[in-house]
């Protein structure tokens, strides 16, 4: 029942040099440090959540080179040289992403714990497919569990953001 029981202290340090939300960051990480730990603990970007630590819930979803990944399953060294985007980097010059506004407006967040990961999966979906059908939205968010909303207001928020994006 214990995570990492018996793991020795035989860990080497590596330099991790990557972009986070448009800023270059450089730090030392051990072999086993995950991207989630680096974001939350080393860079204090606590908007990214952890719900299971084993890639089952989607709460830790971030974008690596614009593709959604589960940051709890990514060894930090793997993103060396990459560009990482978290919920803190969704806004542009302080203006919230259309998805952030739509999620707030339509009640797509209740407890809010799945929300950051859900937003990044939705952002990747809309970047790839600006006019998703409801089924495509379901498919795009299938890896992000939400226990509060029944997903309905999340689907509506993604649709609203997509339609506003097309209108501007």
């Amino acid at each position, binding site marked *: 029942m214990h995570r*990492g029981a018996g*793991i020795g202290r035989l860990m080497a340090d590596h330099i991790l040099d990557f972009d986070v939300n448009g800023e270059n960051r450089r730090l030392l990480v051990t072999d086993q440090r995950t991207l989630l730990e680096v974001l939350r603990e080393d860079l204090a970007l606590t908007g990214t*959540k952890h719900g299971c630590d084993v890639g089952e*819930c989607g709460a830790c979803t971030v974008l690596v080179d614009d593709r959604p990944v589960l940051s709890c399953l990514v060894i930090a060294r793997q993103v060396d040289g990459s560009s990482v985007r978290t919920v803190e980097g969704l806004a542009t010059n302080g203006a919230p992403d259309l998805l952030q506004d739509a999620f707030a407006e339509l009640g797509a*967040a209740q407890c809010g714990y799945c929300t950051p990961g859900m*937003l990044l999966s939705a952002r990747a979906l809309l970047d790839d497919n600006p006019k998703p059908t409801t089924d495509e939205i379901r498919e795009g968010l299938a890896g992000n569990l939400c226990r509060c909303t029944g997903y309905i207001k999340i689907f509506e928020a993604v649709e609203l953001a997509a339609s506003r994006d097309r209108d501007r």
Partner: protein
Amino acid sequence: MSGSFSVVGQRLPRVDAMDQTMGNTRYVDDMTLPGMLVGRHLTSIHAHARILAIDTSRAEALAGVHAVITGADLPITYGILPISQDENALAVGKVRYVGEPVAAVAAVDPEIAEQALALIDVSYEPLDEVLTLEQALDTDHPMLHGDGLGQNLHRSAALEFGDTEEGFARADYVREDVFFFEGNTHAALETHVALASYSQTGKLTLWSSTQVPHYVHRTLEKVLELPAGRIRVIATAIGGGFGGKTDPFSHELTAAKLSMVTGRPVKINLSREEVFYAHRGRHPVLMWVKTGFENNGQITSMHFKTFLDGGAYGSYGVASLYYTGALQTTTYRIPNYRFEGLRVFTNKPACGPKRGHGTPQPRFGLECHLDKAAADLGLDPATIRRRNAVEPFSTTVNHLRITSCALIECIDKVVDASDFAGKHGSLPSGRGVGLAVGAYMSGAGLPIYFNDMPQSEVQIKVDRGGGVTVYSMATDIGQGSTTMLATVIAEALGLEPRDINMVIADTDLTPVDLGSYSSRVTFMAGNAAVTAGAKIRSRVVQAVADELDVDSAQVVAEGGRVGVSGDLDRSVTWAEAVRLAIAATGPLVESGGYTAPKLAGTFRGAGVGISPAYSYSACVVEVDCAVDTGLVKVERVWLAHDIGRALNPLLAEGQVEGGVYMGLGEALYEEHTFRGGLHRGPSLLDYKIPTALDMPPVETFLVESDDPEGPLGAKEVGQGPLLPVIPAVANAIHDALGIRIDEVPITPQKIVAALRNVSRGRPGRIGPETVPDFEFTRLTRVEPPEGFVAP
């Protein structure tokens, strides 16, 4: 109640919605304190064993370990109910389930903490395991609580209201059914986390993802033997609760103790697996129901028996037990009613409250039973429910006071919108519709520990700049209670909800609210807020009236101004009005409290089920079933909910949709089951909760019955809408396939097995056949309440 509101009834976002979507909401796990240590629990590998010895010396010697504690360090027992003080933060003497915390360490980092756990030597003497209801009823198994062999009975209940035998005797038709509801769990996305910081001044602060900071406060006081005034509990933002964070938990106590021992802050973050073992979720319930009907479908008598597999500890179990028998009468006029229930201890994680607390299980049984009776009587499912529906402002045979009730209107809404009459019995094979109803409390009528103090208090302070700050201990677990309070107070003061500053759930700063459970917050904290808001408004209005030399009856607070309505010359800004009030009558600080009316009868168990008001729901589910695989696709759900008044329809709809979602998961997928003492799948991969791909469209109807005692007429919405969903699914599957799966979850395997039975000429039913032949003693006979009119 006048129908004219300014912000009440608007589809406004949560007041903290932008913080949530920008990633700025702070949960406990987002907090770090200087010098903070990591805490971890060593947990039991046995379901039932005596602890012979614990040697922590090797762990203590490891560099980086600051403290190791065991049950000997926290010997005082506790439990959420005063009558069930049967838990220790760390096991003392024996362990009673796999996963039970046995020791705790504090270390400089997680890796060292894990290594330290591996260095703790515990020697156990395994005992026979008690894993099922049947084993718990045997006399040849060791008792979990107590010495020697014997039955593992926790609590039984036996109540009779009216004369059930007489009722059965005059029935035209009597039927009996047996049902089973498997246990399931909350699975909130946020795991349980606590951060404790003890200062050498003697002050302990605990940040926790708890729904009940007041009860955690009391538990810390008892177990740590610290004065309550030296303990501060702060419930931070909570990443989902559903009842799963409503007990005081081991890690809250061990984090506090480790901080006291080390003098450093200690954070304990339960792993997802540990959360599954911490549990406190839905009880597995085996039940039997016998009902007598007249030919027209009217109920003459009902006898309901429940058997709850409680797991290893009491938790809320005594209340859960009574809840399995209490609310059947809130939807149907039952002139004679008998309830017998038993909760047993088993070597599994303790069960407790989950959304609907003890009522979804009997509601499932009752609503399926009623459909079967309707079919035999030649009645359609809507007719039998309308015929027996309780009436507004009535009293049930078991002494529950009903106020507003729009049950029939709810039935009409979903039956009409779904074309239930056109579809039921008429859709092609494999497709079907099912109907069910439910009711739930707007707050438990009594606090958990006996006292005459208000169940909720709200304070408001207004500063000289017009800023309004509200203080309440109500915890926002995602249901929107903070927004509800801001809305009610903004309405009173003519402001917008986002103008109100909210200070929430901090025992140093906020007055007591008992917590987010039993769907009590809108009703109780909402009423306290209405009272406090009215006091502030009245003082401000009077000051402005005096200043303008007009009658105070002419003065209103609206749109950020106070004065004569619509007259800019004879009104002032809110901030100016506040300054006038402070100058005239002193500091602008007011409070309000809410105490539920005294509704409990004097019989044993009378305290469970009473509530100042009940919400009502009706649900139709349409399914499409694959006969070859047994897979059920839910096509659409219609749900009408009598909410009294929707203070915020957007958030209320979200509660309905979330309740439907959780009900569908319980009906079709989720089971918290064990192999030996081991959970079959303590992960979010193996414990199957519905994903975005599984969720059908939901049509929600909010019915406003305007409750006379609710805050601005409101009742609950957090729990009630889940109740009818589960039996509506079961009834829809029956309509689709002609089979009866009398236990949940209704898995494809069960459907295929039932269809195979049919193909072999046997009854197409899967479910339990009998309940244990347990003799309930000490039957309490209670006369129906004065003025009770049998239908």
